[in-house]
């Protein structure tokens, strides 16, 4: 038996455990897929083939010695703001091209201890802000792969990696999942140490996981977060109580709105309780609070570096940093207090539902000069709630559409189980034909 590009992580682990194939086989097939497609897709900023093969061989020796690790043989593509020892952390910023990480970020150390290996570093918008990355959308080369985790989002549906890591400070995990047509999961804030990750906004930054299916996301999340082991292929929970958010449907383009209504109808037919409602805090209030915190913290992170390298900063991040530096301290503190108040208000409201459902993005993938509408991903980021985007359909233009599910704080596993139940009713779109 030989591995294939596009295999599920769960299949890889089982096959490496039972000896059907080796981690080296897994590495070779994914390196071949990168060789074949990445000249056009440009998901990867750095791939060190020798390092990949050496790590795969080491994992095979571990297996030969009797080890059966929980993620044994699973390749992971890593957003290029996350340190991987021996590889540069460029972050889309030319002066960092030789910025070789001396040690792994906390999440990479954990992945390696679980038997996964790093396939390479993926393109990001510069410092995870809004200046587009070079990556193409695997479904249409003229369309945006979104941002900031553009390369990680594109690596999954092009069969180059079964798992990828990204980050979200506004919408940078979920929007690439929707535009590229993969599953993207942003757990509850603070689920994982940010050590070894270039920050953008300390209080808003989240790490997240991409995969081609919910089971693989759950498998990796459970292992990383240290949840009690449980077979992630087991049947999901009973039909959930779903809050379908009208405000966001009204802000969506017609194909997005029609698709989500169709999904909601199918879930209701299958036994879910679907209630059309709104958050108890209007979106515009959440948006302004997020934008003030985001802008002020981004300015604090980047101000000194911008002074040192003004000509190397992209126009959007540069103007964002300069404007953010002008925010008065009292305004920032007021925004932080409002954030706390809104978290409490929405937490109380959430007790009547299991999950919130809304489109991941208001539109299908936009043109490549932009990275897309970040508004719909901001509530979960600001509130620190777990959120997942499922690629549940294609637009009339043949582009993926995402369904966003938001769970309660620290109920990440419950959200993932609800996502698996929904998947049984609304199957995922799979990957484009040309990558199979």
């Amino acid at each position, binding site marked *: 038996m030989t591995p294939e590009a596009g295999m599920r992580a769960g299949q890889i682990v089982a096959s490496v455990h039972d000896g059907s194939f080796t981690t080296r086989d897994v590495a070779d097939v994914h390196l071949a897929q990168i060789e074949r497609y990445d000249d056009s897709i440009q998901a990867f900023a750095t791939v060190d083939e020798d390092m990949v093969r050496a790590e795969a061989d080491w994992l095979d020796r571990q297996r030969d010695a009797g080890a059966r690790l929980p993620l044994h043989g699973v390749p992971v593509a890593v957003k290029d703001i996350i340190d991987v020892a021996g590889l540069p952390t460029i972050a889309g910023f030319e002066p960092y091209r030789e910025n070789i990480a001396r040690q792994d970020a906390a999440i990479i150390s954990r992945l390696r201890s679980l038997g996964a290996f790093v396939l390479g570093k993926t393109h990001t918008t510069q410092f995870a802000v809004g200046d587009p990355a070079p990556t193409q959308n695997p479904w249409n080369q003229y369309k945006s792969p979104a941002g900031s985790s553009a390369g990680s989002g594109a690596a999954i549906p092009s069969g180059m990696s079964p798992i990828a890591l990204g980050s979200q400070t506004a919408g940078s995990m979920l929007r690439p999942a929707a535009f590229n047509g993969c599953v993207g999961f942003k757990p509850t804030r603070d689920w994982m140490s940010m050590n070894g990750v270039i920050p953008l906004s300390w209080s808003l930054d989240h790490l997240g996981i991409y995969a081609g299916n919910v089971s693989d996301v759950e498998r990796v999340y459970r292992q990383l977060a240290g949840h009690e082991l449980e077979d992630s292929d087991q049947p999901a929970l009973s039909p959930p109580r779903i809050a379908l958010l009208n405000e966001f449907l009204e802000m969506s383009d017609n194909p997005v709105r029609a698709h989500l209504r169709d999904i909601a109808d199918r879930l209701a037919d299958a036994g879910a309780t679907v209630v059309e409602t709104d958050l108890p805090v209007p979106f515009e209030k959440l948006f*302004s609070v997020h934008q003030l915190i985001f*802008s002020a913290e981004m300015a604090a992170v980047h101000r000194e570096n911008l002074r040192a390298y003004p000509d190397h900063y992209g126009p959007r991040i540069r103007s964002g940093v300069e404007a953010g530096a002008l925010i008065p301290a009292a305004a920032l503190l007021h925004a932080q*207090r409002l954030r706390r*108040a809104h978290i*409490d208000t929405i937490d109380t409201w959430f007790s009547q539902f299991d999950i919130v459902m809304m489109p991941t993005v208001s539109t299908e993938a936009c043109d490549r000069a932009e990275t897309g509408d970040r508004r719909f991903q901001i509530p979960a980021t600001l509130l620190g709630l777990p959120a997942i985007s499922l690629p549940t359909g294609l637009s009339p233009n043949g582009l993926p559409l995402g369904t966003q599910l938001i769970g309660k704080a620290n109920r990440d596993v419950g959200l993932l189980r609800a996502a698996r139940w929904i998947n049984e009713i609304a199957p995922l779109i799979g990957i484009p034909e040309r990558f199979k």
Partner: protein
Amino acid sequence: MDQRQNPGAGEYYRRLTSAARDDYGEQRAGELDDQLRHLSEMMAGVAGQRLTLTDAPIEQLPRQDRSGQ
């Protein structure tokens, strides 16, 4: 929370533009205009959301590092 009408973004825009001129010069302040307009609207949106003196105190202590958990 008392949710009074937002005061509008004009005054914030004037203050931000003035500060940008002081810090970055006339030309750069002009290039930042879109950002300054956006930010002034956001500041007005935040200022329009009122809290009592005792609502939502800021947590002063840093969180524990959770590496390895």
